[in-house]
């Protein structure tokens, strides 16, 4: 083999690999950033980008927003819109969503809304106190980079990352998932029965965290250090100020935690941090009374509460259901009386109800 042939084989091979990678990313689009529709099922969606695109599509009509991590996915948008008295409520829930994601997105939306007839009236913010102050997920992972419109990053750099990432497993999973979805659709069409494969069994999902070694590792890696706390508190203050300055009503709730999670973080630490957050803005605390913490029937897995719990939370916040003493309103005394506090509205947001009323799910 001549040196020339050797070099050409290497250069050709390397560029083939590179171009194949670009092609796979554009065609399969695992993070759904290119908007390619050839494979409809995505497995590693960049929800920060998707939420912005969704907003852009309905920017004219949106008048309310939900900011939350994936824990907020089961908060019913219909109930939220109804509770807030809004006409068009959009969700900006995203995996590992944190205040570092919400503030730039809200700033973008506020700027955008300035030129539109329908303004943003209400923001619902669901905070995860167990994550608050931890290293931010924002821009730390290929499915968590903020879209260039709302970050300082150049658009070229953003797209280059998604164009060139070698993500063999995700490509494979996109193809498999797409194939399975087609098979399921075919089977459902033939038999009329929906295949439930892929749903998580809550008992199975909880199994992992019961291992003492895993709990120990979790505790070790997830210790009481919250290195980003000051910055995130400042961001929360920025979010509150943004809402206040733009006459946007803000409702804040702390998502409930499971018993094991409360234990790992320490109930006292959770309470102290919630107290600090409540000094920034009044909020509904769903951990002060751990009503569902040890009831598996309210949990999808070891982190996400289910639809029943979500409905109970909204009922508590908007005063539309019976009060069971869950969801303490904290920090109201610090409310400066401006338009950001959770106070009764046309939609029915209410102060805490009596403890002896019937739980929502028992009705």
């Amino acid at each position, binding site marked *: *083999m*001549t*040196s*020339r*042939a*050797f*070099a050409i*084989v*290497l*250069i050709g*091979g*390397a*560029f083939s*690999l*590179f171009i194949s*990678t670009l092609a796979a990313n554009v065609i399969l689009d695992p993070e759904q950033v290119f908007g390619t529709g050839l494979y409809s099922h995505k497995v590693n969606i960049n929800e920060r980008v998707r939420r912005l695109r969704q907003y852009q599509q309905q920017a004219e009509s949106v008048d309310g927003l939900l900011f939350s991590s994936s824990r907020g996915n089961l908060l019913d948008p219909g109930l939220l819109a109804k509770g807030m008295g809004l006409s068009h409520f959009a969700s900006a829930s995203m995996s590992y969503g944190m205040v570092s994601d919400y503030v730039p997105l809200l700033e973008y939306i506020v700027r955008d809304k300035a030129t539109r007839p329908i303004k943003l009236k209400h923001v619902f913010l669901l905070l995860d106190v167990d994550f608050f102050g931890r290293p931010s997920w924002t821009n730390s992972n*290929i499915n968590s980079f903020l879209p260039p419109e709302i970050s300082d990053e150049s658009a070229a750099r953003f797209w*280059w990352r998604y164009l*060139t*990432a*070698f*993500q*063999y497993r995700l490509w494979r999973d996109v193809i498999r998932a797409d194939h399975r979805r087609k098979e399921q659709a075919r089977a459902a069409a033939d038999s009329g029965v929906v295949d439930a494969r892929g749903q998580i069994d809550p008992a199975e999902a909880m199994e992992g965290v019961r291992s003492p*070694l*895993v709990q*120990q*590792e979790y*505790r*070790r*890696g997830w210790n009481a250090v919250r290195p980003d706390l000051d910055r995130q508190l400042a961001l929360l203050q920025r979010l509150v100020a943004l809402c206040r300055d733009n006459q946007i009503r803000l409702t804040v709730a702390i998502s409930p935690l499971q018993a094991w999670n409360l234990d790992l973080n320490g109930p006292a630490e959770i309470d102290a941090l919630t107290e600090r957050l409540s000094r920034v803005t009044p909020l509904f605390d769903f951990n002060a009374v751990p009503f569902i913490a040890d009831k598996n029937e309210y949990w999808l897995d070891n982190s996400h509460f289910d639809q029943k719990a979500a409905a109970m939370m909204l009922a508590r916040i908007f005063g539309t259901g019976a009060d069971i003493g869950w969801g303490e309103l904290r920090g109201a005394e610090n409310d400066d009386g401006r338009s950001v506090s959770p106070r009764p509205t046309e939609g029915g947001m209410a102060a805490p109800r009596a403890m002896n009323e019937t739980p929502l799910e028992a009705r």
Partner: protein
Amino acid sequence: MLFNSLEFIFVFLPIALAVHFLAAGHGIRAAATVTTLSSLFFYAWWKPSFLPLPVLSITFNFLLAGLITRTQRDRARWWLILGVTANLLVLGYFKYSDFLLSILEQRSPGSPNVPLALSFTTFVQIAFLVECYRKAPTTPLPFYAMFVSFFPHLIAGPIVRWSELGPQIADKDHYRPDWDNIAKGLTIFCLGIAKKVLIADKLAVFVAPVFDAASAGESVSAVAAWGGSIAYSLQLYFDFSGYSDMAVGLGLLFNFRLPINFAAPFRSTSIIDLWRRWHISLSRFLRDFVYVPLGGNGSGPLRRSLNLIVTMVVGGFWHGANWTFICWGAFHGILLTANHLWRSLRGEREASAAGRFVGWFLTFAAFAVGMTMFRSADLATSGRLLQAMVGFGHAPENPPVMVGFDFWVMEKGFVTEAFVRNWLGSYWSVVGSLATMVAFAIAIAVPDTMELVDYREGEPRSNWRRSGSPLRWSPSPAWALAVLALFGVAFANLGSFSEFLYYQF
């Protein structure tokens, strides 16, 4: 821009090569100018605001070199002193001023904000001025600018001399693509990137917990301290030698031959030999511009020892403004002194196989101990780790274990939880030990890149090459397949951002 980034490999490099050889059609000065501009673009990619620094520095040193070569020797000497002083002042201002002020003000030094490549270009340009004074080379600005800024060596060396690269830059025969050099250069580049991405970066995840824990004031076990230090020694070796291989490979793509920087240093059987094979271009610089001017070994053993220690302290301080680097340099100065003393006692007799083994073992162990200082954030951290290494660490009685790495081996029953808990503690792992052993075996047993491809530019004064390796490189289909496969695996791992360790120096 990093050598191990996709934008470098698939965009910048092909364009830089194409414009270099296209411009060469219009003359070698045009090619040198174009490649200088490419190199400055490469530099500015990191932080555009620092770009004026190399531009001004190159211009200043070029003008000064002209004065040195054109004036009488007595006057030239003063121009040389001015040039060396100015270069050191710039380096000192950016790299050491805060450290020195922190000593005076008795506070902790802040985070350094050193312009990229400054340490390396300072030494390259000082060496050039001295060469101008001694041999009076004359060169046009485009050649000098390319000599200093040539991007393969710009950021982290090798620290090239004008006598090595200058004649090549001035020779028009070097401005034509040479397929033999391109084939070899691509091979060296791919082996270098594999060292960096597949070995050094993999070890980093095991090293960090040990040093971070010690830095946070936590106790680590003796096994963890040794494991962390050995793993870091290997990480640094594969990282920096990988980078140096890539630099040499890139040089060959342009048809320029850069000197080698590493020669299988972990096979050294003495610390003297190790320093002839580790960061060779820095060792040469320190020898020629610090050790020899101090008097070298010509003034008796006591003076030689002092010169060695001072030289190594300077070398340590060059790495960074921190007491840890100063102590690391002093430690190596003492080791070299001890090694010279041993040699003078023992004479020139050939060592036995057992003697060579003991020498090798002590050399590697001493190097790993030194790396504890080199990697530590401060002296207190080094102290904690060194205490642990000699068995004075105070590991907690029932430490949590590093489940993230060892869960699988414990779950499968390959090791017991008690073993991990008692011997490794919270910051070291079975998996980390295995990864370190594999990297160690590669460093010792597998022929070095420069051995494989028989590249000998800047060969060290050491009989380091093994003869008769069956793996010797040739442009064959088997090698093409192997190199391509290695590049493919490295390519698949390029997604995560990882800087070269020597960028920080």
